[in-house]
């Protein structure tokens, strides 16, 4: 199903960037790393489309662009519909001899707002129709572009400007929507989760998403120093902790068959390696209010839900 694409860090370093430097992302931006890594996975000519969001804004301030590949943005909620149109146009123009290239791949990028919330209809429709494209969700767990408002991807207890840590309500009362599982439920050929700390795993999965026939969905955790309130040097550390605490386990579902990826499989095999969520939470200012006597029980609740979701995942992977 997938080619045996082997690569070293040197290959990746030498492969020209399609998402180039000079963009205006903040220092320590997780999503910018995700973009760069995903584009290291392309196998040939590729057209990219982005939903409105941080990454669209910072990469294309007219008359500058960070994109060395054809790129289009049209609106917030429709990036999967754009991808549908691009993929279909390539198909028919190739047939009519008006596009010479044998193959052009299509990648769509959406943030958590453009994916969990306002864009889920277009995404669900495009996947149901079976368009051949890779959808990459860079999940920084809130509407960061407009100044840190909660989304369906914001985790329980996190403080955002629309789920503030008040004296009565300790951050977001609701739980993170299991978006990747929702995508698996579409019976699509390839769904995976990734973290930029595990860069090789991320690039491999992006490549598989590109190679698979039909729609692929890659859910990448993408820490945001501004919104998560941590030092700009810590993005990779936090990307790692998310996996080590099983807050964001890494897995693939190929034709609906779940399997854990190496960094999470290690934890499944040696549960003593599973770190408490407290370590992940305390590294981020958005959870600071939970480390007070009044709201400390929320941390227990986050641990409970993390364990419950992890156990459910292990069952799906046949490792419970």
């Amino acid at each position, binding site marked *: 199903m997938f080619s045996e694409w082997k690569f070293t860090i040197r290959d990746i370093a030498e492969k020209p960037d399609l998402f180039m430097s000079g963009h205006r992302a903040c220092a320590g931006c997780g999503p910018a790393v995700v973009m760069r890594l995903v584009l290291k996975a392309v196998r040939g000519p590729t057209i990219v489309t982005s939903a409105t969001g941080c990454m669209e*804004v910072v990469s294309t301030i007219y008359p500058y662009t960070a994109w060395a590949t*054809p790129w289009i*943005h*049209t609106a917030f909620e429709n990036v999967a519909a754009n991808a549908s*149109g691009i993929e279909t*146009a390539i198909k028919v123009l190739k047939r*009519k001899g008006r596009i010479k290239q044998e193959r052009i791949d299509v990648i769509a990028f959406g943030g958590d707002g453009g994916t969990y919330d306002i864009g889920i209809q*277009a995404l669900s429709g495009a996947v149901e*129709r079976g368009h051949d494209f890779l959808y990459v969700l860079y999940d920084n767990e809130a509407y960061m572009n407009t100044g840190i408002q909660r989304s369906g991807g914001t985790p329980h207890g996190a403080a955002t400007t629309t789920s503030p840590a008040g004296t009565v309500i300790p951050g977001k009362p609701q739980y993170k929507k299991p978006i990747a599982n929702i995508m698996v439920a579409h019976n699509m050929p390839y769904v995976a989760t990734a973290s930029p700390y595990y860069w090789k795993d991320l690039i491999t999965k992006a490549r598989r998403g590109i190679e698979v026939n039909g729609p692929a969905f890659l859910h990448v955790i993408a820490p945001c120093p501004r919104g998560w309130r941590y030092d700009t040097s810590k993005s990779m550390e936090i990307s790692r902790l998310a996996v080590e605490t099983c807050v964001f386990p890494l897995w693939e579902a190929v034709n609906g068959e779940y399997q854990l990826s190496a960094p999470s499989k290690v934890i499944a095999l040696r549960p003593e390696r599973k770190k408490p969520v407290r370590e992940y939470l305390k590294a981020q200012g958005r959870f600071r209010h939970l480390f007070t006597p009044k709201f400390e029980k929320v941390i227990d609740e986050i641990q409970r839900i993390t364990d419950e979701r992890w156990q459910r995942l292990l069952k799906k992977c046949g490792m419970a």
Partner: protein
Amino acid sequence: MESVVKQKVLALNGDEAVAYAVKQSDVDVVSAYPITPQTIIVERFSEYVANGEVDAEFICVESEHSALSACLAASAVGARTFTATASAGLALMHEILYVTSGCRAPVVMAVANRALSAPINIHCDHSDSMVERDCGWIQIYVENSQEAYDSIIQAFRIAENQKIMLPVMVCLDGFTLSHTLENVHVLPDGTVKNFVGTRQFPLVTTHEGKNVPLRLDVENPMTIGPLDLPDYYFEHKRQQEEAMRNAPEIIKQIHEEYARISGRRYGDGLLDSYRLEDAEIAVICLGSTAGTVKTVVDDLRNEGVKAGLLRIRTFRPLPIEGIIKALEKVKAVAVMDRSMSFGGHGGAVFHEVRHALYDAATHPHVVNYVYGLGGRDTSPSQIREIFNDLQKILETGRVKAPVQFVGLRE
């Protein structure tokens, strides 16, 4: 000079005439979502695709918002694209209408005009497309199914013209046209294919000084739809207005070129007048109502009344000079609006015709009749009443009520 081509006559309703024209226009991607009274367009086109009668892809999307988004992106890749909608569907597209014109994507769309909710109503009025008059699309309103067919074919040429590069909306009255069978003369497939040609791309200069086609081309990577801040946005909007200003002459040329092949003309392509040359009183309207007005004009002429009709075919861009010229000798004009501008003292067509006439040397009296909302029928006797009102204005020199409703229960 080309001569008129021999044509088949088919019994088609307006929707079918649109679908047939799209099929013949070498379209690449059609993306649409069904909504009454546009549905037949997508049904027929789906059949053409299913039966291999057209070399195109049909994307049956999950909403009108996605329908236009898919067309826009496919158009950016280089495809000739078409969509169709009505009413709430057009309203749902609203955001992307602006994005499409702003990206200069030559998408063609048919709108089977229908009232907007609430209360929900599936029948004809122009509320849906009138509210979109500022979105940067060219708007053509057709009188019958024949004109719907002819206009769709012309629309691809207009939209893709290098000096225009704007999307085009062809508006046909829901049910009155969309669902009513007519004899429609259709050109041979090859004639239409030649007429529309293959899509050409304007060249733009890159930062490296290379001239490359304006499209998503993997050999010449281009960023389309960037963030445009106060230092450039305004100039880009002005370019759209310049394209609109280029459009009237080109619309007329394309209309004339088509007329030489088909033998059919709709005025000069912008305005279509009927017995207006020596008219003292005239009605201005859009769409299928013009047919009813013509029969009343004939009756009045037989009675010695100098009545006439001016039908605005191209509402965007608004042919201001043509309107002034057409109404030069007219003394009283009734503008018929099939939509409301709530609180705006009259409908949109009325506002714009009055605005156009401000620059005229002499002003006729201009009054407004809002009619036919939610599909209410407008009879010849009601049109006659309007002409009677105009005659009274001529006799007394006074306008009693500048804005009135037609056929409304009081």
